[in-house]
């Protein structure tokens, strides 16, 4: 027997997404997903809004694409502008941009694991059995008890109601992870404070500009950043990574769940010099082999998106013409492809590319040190648990590196390079948002933006089918998934959330 399984809306992500699947009942009563559609449900038209504007407006406007990863947009825009203007950031400018991005990575990864993903694993009601003395957990317990005793219409909202399913059984583990969940609220906000030390405010930095940053480094600023970084580093190392390992221990089958095409794309991120050096390298992995990335091989398909523009073109030449009533379309996302392949982007792609790149052997060593003893292979990075693990690992690396970047700041040097907008020019900016490869393509005519196109991480991951009918990455990752209760498909939510979807970004 076949039936439809859907999660509409799929919440605890950024933005508006639904998934629709067709599933077949199996002999044991469970359902196996045979095909899936990802539906991006919101379109604002940023690329149209940007047309005819001052190019420097772009790093402010495009940050508003996403309130979770505004810095990645701002930075991609700055890089596209820097290329079009023919400038490079000053050394301080490069370091400050790195430090701002690093802080927002930590914010985003902590938010994702605890506040978006963890409620698929952790049983909140286990706190009712808590007998310990932790004041936060006692407070949460009292809150849940009280709302139940008062017969509140919405007990323990918004942590309830939820899908019922195979939550963690152990009260001890549930309460431990709930304690981390509570602590993570403060840690996430602390990471935003650390970001704002140089970014002026978060979300949506005003200090980030092409050529660097308006906020100069001072002893006071460096101290403000470093003290917060030390606290966050302790949390990431002693709580976040161990919690990911604990969750993995409870769900070992999720190393095999949600693999998808396992073709990986990373633009690379964190400039280590002004010659193109990157902390996490750029590259493409197709069929397990590392290739050099060539941005001319990206094409955007719109056959199944609500757009009427020509399909299959390079982003620098693409348009964005909405067609909300188009037949055969089912999503506001376009379908980007690399040399025709649906690609996974995000933490696992960054880690996999770094793992295979001989220039970054330190990544291979670090990853092998974690997955080797568990009997896992690099391919397991492309899985629900692999994505959570990759995030936690890179959070440690980024925090460690940020501490070094602070030392490299020069208190006597300018924080930004002056920029002059040419009458015409072209540029593109490639970097990595916390959730994957982000690219902005800009062309300038008569000093104004003539064309602006963004290809954003979740555009890759949650894309609809392409012109050839090949499903997107998450659509492929859902195919084959077994769901116990088709009305409460908690397993599907786990797969989709492991990609950390950002739907505002993906459509923009």
């Amino acid at each position, binding site marked *: 027997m076949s039936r439809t399984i859907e999660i509409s809306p799929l919440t605890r992500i950024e933005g508006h997404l639904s998934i629709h699947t067709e599933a077949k009942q199996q002999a044991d009563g469970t359902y196996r997903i045979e095909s899936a559609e990802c539906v991006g449900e919101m379109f604002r038209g940023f690329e149209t809004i940007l047309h005819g504007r001052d190019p420097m407006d772009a790093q402010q406007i495009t940050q508003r694409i*996403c309130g979770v990863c505004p810095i990645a947009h701002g930075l991609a825009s700055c890089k596209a502008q820097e290329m079009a203007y023919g400038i490079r950031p000053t050394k301080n400018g490069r370091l400050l941009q790195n430090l701002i991005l690093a802080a927002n990575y930590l914010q985003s990864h902590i938010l994702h694991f605890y506040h978006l993903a963890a409620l698929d694993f952790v049983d909140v009601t286990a706190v009712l059995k808590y007998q310990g003395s932790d004041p936060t957990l006692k*407070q949460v317990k009292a809150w849940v008890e009280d709302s139940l005793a008062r017969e509140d219409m919405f007990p323990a909202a918004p942590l309830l109601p939820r899908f019922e399913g195979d939550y963690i059984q152990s009260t001890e583990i549930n309460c431990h992870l709930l304690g981390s969940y509570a602590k993570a609220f403060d840690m996430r906000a602390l990471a935003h*404070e650390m970001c704002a030390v140089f970014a*002026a*405010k978060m979300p949506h930095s005003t200090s980030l500009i092409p050529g660097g940053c308006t906020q100069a480094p001072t002893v006071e600023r460096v101290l403000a950043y470093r003290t917060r970084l030390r606290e966050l580093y302790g949390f990431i190392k002693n709580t976040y990574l161990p919690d990911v390992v604990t969750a993995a221990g409870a769900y070992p089958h999720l190393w095999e769940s949600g693999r998808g095409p396992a073709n990986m794309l990373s633009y690379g991120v964190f400039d280590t010099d002004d010659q193109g050096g990157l902390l996490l390298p750029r590259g493409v992995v197709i069929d397990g082999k590392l290739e050099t990335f060539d941005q001319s091989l990206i094409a955007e398909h719109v056959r199944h998106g609500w757009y009427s523009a020509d399909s299959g073109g390079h982003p620098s030449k693409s348009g964005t013409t909405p067609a909300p009533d188009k037949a055969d379309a089912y999503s506001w996302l376009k379908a980007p492809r690399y040399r025709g392949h649906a690609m996974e982007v995000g933490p696992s792609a960054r880690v996999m590319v770094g793992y295979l790149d001989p220039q970054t052997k330190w990544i291979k060593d670090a990853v092998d040190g974690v997955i080797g003893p568990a009997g896992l292979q690099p391919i397991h990075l492309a899985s629900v648990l692999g994505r959570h693990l990759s995030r936690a690992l890179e959070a440690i690396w980024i925090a460690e590196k940020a501490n070094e970047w602070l030392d490299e700041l020069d208190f006597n040097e300018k924080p930004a390079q002056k920029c002059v907008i040419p009458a015409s020019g072209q540029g593109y900016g490639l970097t990595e948002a916390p959730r994957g490869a982000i690219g902005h393509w800009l062309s300038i005519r008569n000093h104004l933006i003539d064309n602006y196109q963004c290809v954003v991480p979740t555009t890759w991951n949650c894309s609809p089918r392409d012109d050839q009918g090949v499903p997107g990455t998450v659509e492929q990752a859902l195919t084959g998934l077994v769901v116990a209760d088709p009305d409460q498909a908690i397993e599907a939510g786990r797969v989709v959330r492991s990609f950390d979807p950002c739907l505002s970004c993906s459509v923009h």
Partner: protein
Amino acid sequence: MGTLTRRDFLKIAGALAGAAGLSSPGAQVFAKGLENIYGGKTRILWLEGMSCTGCSVSLLNSENPKPLELLTQYISLVFHGAVGAAQGQTAVETIERALAAGDCIPVIEGAIPLGMPRAQLFHGKPFAETLLPVLEKAPFVVAAGTCSSFGGVCSAEGNPTGAVSVKQFMEHHGLPTHKRLICCPSCPTHPASLIGTLAHLSTVGYPEVDRELLTPVMFYGTSTHDNCPRFHDYNKHIFAQELGDQKGCLFELGCLGPLTYTKCPERQWNGGVNWCVRASAPCVGCSSPEFAQRRDFPFYRNREGLQFAGKGGSGHGGDES
């Protein structure tokens, strides 16, 4: 732990009132209101329109109270698409129950695509169909952030969706906004303004607002420029000349502080660690109805290659046209 004492309330209320710029008699009022809130009486239904989720993230940056305290001790957040557990049919039913309860205060984040309803879908249908009955029944409606307050970036010139603010959407559907709708702009909304407004609504009711903008005067009554720490530079005509200059008034670079009404200079952002002008970044006017609206009114001015002579421009731009 479960029940907060009166002393706890007074302490917390003092912090909130401080954020609201109120003196201690105000704090007493807040304390009373917070007891009401804790009794589960103030239910918040958070709905996202065309948004970036930045206002939700900003809510999580709240200091007084911190986010976990806010969720467990102050409000009943019956639905929130980014942090709530409910998904799929559970989410749809939760919103229906909130509507049936009738006493939830909806907080709307994001603009509404009035000109292209299918530009935002919820559960397969235009979001407006979910939003409209909520706005019809709600005792108060709170617009969080500039998109829901004024349209924001979504409604900028050239936008293809016909994006509108909550006020415009309500007026379009003939819903009353007087003493009902209240707007907490800035991009994102400042958590202290939003939570202070919610506290006021649940204690003494609808606050004094700007008649046209419906922004609470207690948070949006003073221009950023008037309280700017670089105001003396402005008076002495000491102006920063290039982005990245650390000294001088930023007006000639495009700072919109004089046209912007916030408490940024006093409370700053993110735990008070920084704000735009302190970071030598010109104010982009993110709490203004004009924010990002016009192509010919760019954020930055006084540069080579700039050919605008737009409103508020300093006239230092290039000469090309």
